[in-house]
């Protein structure tokens, strides 16, 4: 246990001091600022209805926050953290030093996964705080009447973003373990984020349904249920609909969260197998 805690602490410190992660975080915060500014200009020009769920500004802004965190840039941050976690060790050859210490290999990989997830939780927490502060400063007047709706969704936004980005984080750790060229692994991770979004597009689903007409519905169900984007769309529909209470919404979204957890468990198991069984140094 002390070994695991030491590994977690080391991983966390490595990630905090990594310039690679700082670069992507800077980009992330610029995107958040861009979103808030766009919301502000939309609301101040009286075009609030352009925002989805426009009748409830609090829900609209919380929905935007989840979309920024979990759909567009968040997965890229996850890929970057996952790759950095392995790449730093390989790049500086410190992974060899770690492997000759009297540590079980599973302690190393456990420490890396837990440390990375803790760092990710910190990033998401800071991003939510940053977004909320900006929203309050710029759109405080418009948000006042629906502030409770906004705040009540924040824990869900945090938890869902954490789970969804973790899929990409653990997936990119797996890719980094499999591919020795870390720059290539990072780009492949980025391509996988693109593919996970692409297979949810109408183009892909309709084309697949036409190519395999007898399995049309099965393909659509498979895509909706077994890609990260599909369950996220369901979650957003339940969580940010004004007529559905937060308790009812949490009951609806629970199965979707379980699906995400399954993704993470499968990827973690694959990481264990690769790290413990193969020559990663």
């Amino acid at each position: 246990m002390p070994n695991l805690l030491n590994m977690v602490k080391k991983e966390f410190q490595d990630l905090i001091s990594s310039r690679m992660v700082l670069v992507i975080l800077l980009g992330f915060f610029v995107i958040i600022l861009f979103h808030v500014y766009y919301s502000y200009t939309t609301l101040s020009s009286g075009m609030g209805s352009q925002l989805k769920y426009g009748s409830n500004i609090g829900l609209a802004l919380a929905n935007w926050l989840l979309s920024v965190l979990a759909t567009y840039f968040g997965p890229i941050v996850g890929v970057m953290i996952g790759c950095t976690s392995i790449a730093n060790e390989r790049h500086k050859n410190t992974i060899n030093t770690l492997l000759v210490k009297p540590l079980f290999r599973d302690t190393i990989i456990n420490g890396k996964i837990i440390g990375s997830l803790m760092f990710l939780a910190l990033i998401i927490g800071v991003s939510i705080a940053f977004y909320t502060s900006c929203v309050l400063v710029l759109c405080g007047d418009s948000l006042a009447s629906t502030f409770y709706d906004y705040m009540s969704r924040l824990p869900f936004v945090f938890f869902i973003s954490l789970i969804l980005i973790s899929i990409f984080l653990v997936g990119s750790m797996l890719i980094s373990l499999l591919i020795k060229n870390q720059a290539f692994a990072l780009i492949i991770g980025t391509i996988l984020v693109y593919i996970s979004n692409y297979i949810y597009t109408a183009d892909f689903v309709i084309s697949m349904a036409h190519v395999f007409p007898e399995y049309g519905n099965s393909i659509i169900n498979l895509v909706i249920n077994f890609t990260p984007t599909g369950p996220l769309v369901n979650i957003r529909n339940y969580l940010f609909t004004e007529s559905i209470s937060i308790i009812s919404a949490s009951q609806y979204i629970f199965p979707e969260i379980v699906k995400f957890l399954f993704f993470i468990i499968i990827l973690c198991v694959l990481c264990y197998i690769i790290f413990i069984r193969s020559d990663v140094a």
Partner: protein
Amino acid sequence: MTSIISVIARNEFYRTMFNPMVAVVGMILLTITCLNAAGGIQDLQATSAIWECDGFIIGFSQIWYNTNFICGIMAAYLGVMSISSERGNGSLGILLTKPLYRRDVILGKFIGIDLFLFVFLVITMLANSLFLLNFYGAPSSVYEFLWRITIYTIVLLMDLSLVTGITMFIGIMFKDLLLAVSVVVTYLSYEWFWNQVTAILSYMLNFPVAPYLLTMKIFSMDSNNLFNSNTQFSAWINGVYPYLFLIIFLILAVLLLDCFIYARAEDV
């Protein structure tokens, strides 16, 4: 000087050809083009009936975003690695001990990557044409198809050249390979981000300085769409020539900046 640049360009061309990234992107594009042709026939027929134009040419518009983005990732990776990986394994240091200017190295690498991207795009267009020919049928007019597909390829190449130039700049500026690639991934995320939120995309199209935004302006000039066979060449070029000049200007500016910065860098 020309022969030195051509030697470096040829070397870069062959080096790029065997990069594993090319195989990955090639496989993805092949899958997308095949799916588009095999699965999108009914949509193509419906769209061509609504627009009253050639469905074969519309078949190319359906995959332009994916082609642009996936090839953009490849161009960005090749651009940054052309400098960073050679710096990392020390071969750039050896190259610079030879009697050549630093600007020749940059120009040679840029031309080599661009030539490769041109060949790659031509193969992608041929593959897409073959799939469409097989699943949809022949184009209504071969002449119409040829000029549009030629322009499409050239504009895509200009877009990818700009991406390559920008990422070579990143490779020059950041000495650490992994840091340079992370900056490139951040840059790519922005290119992708513009397309994800329709409202933000329409807002950003007022300031089309990023390669993707510029290409989008050039391809989709409202009624004068390149992929609409009813659009005349003169009408299309009248609508987009400022953007064509802008993208050429940006490519030259970025290339000059690359040469300028690299010539004044103290280390390799």
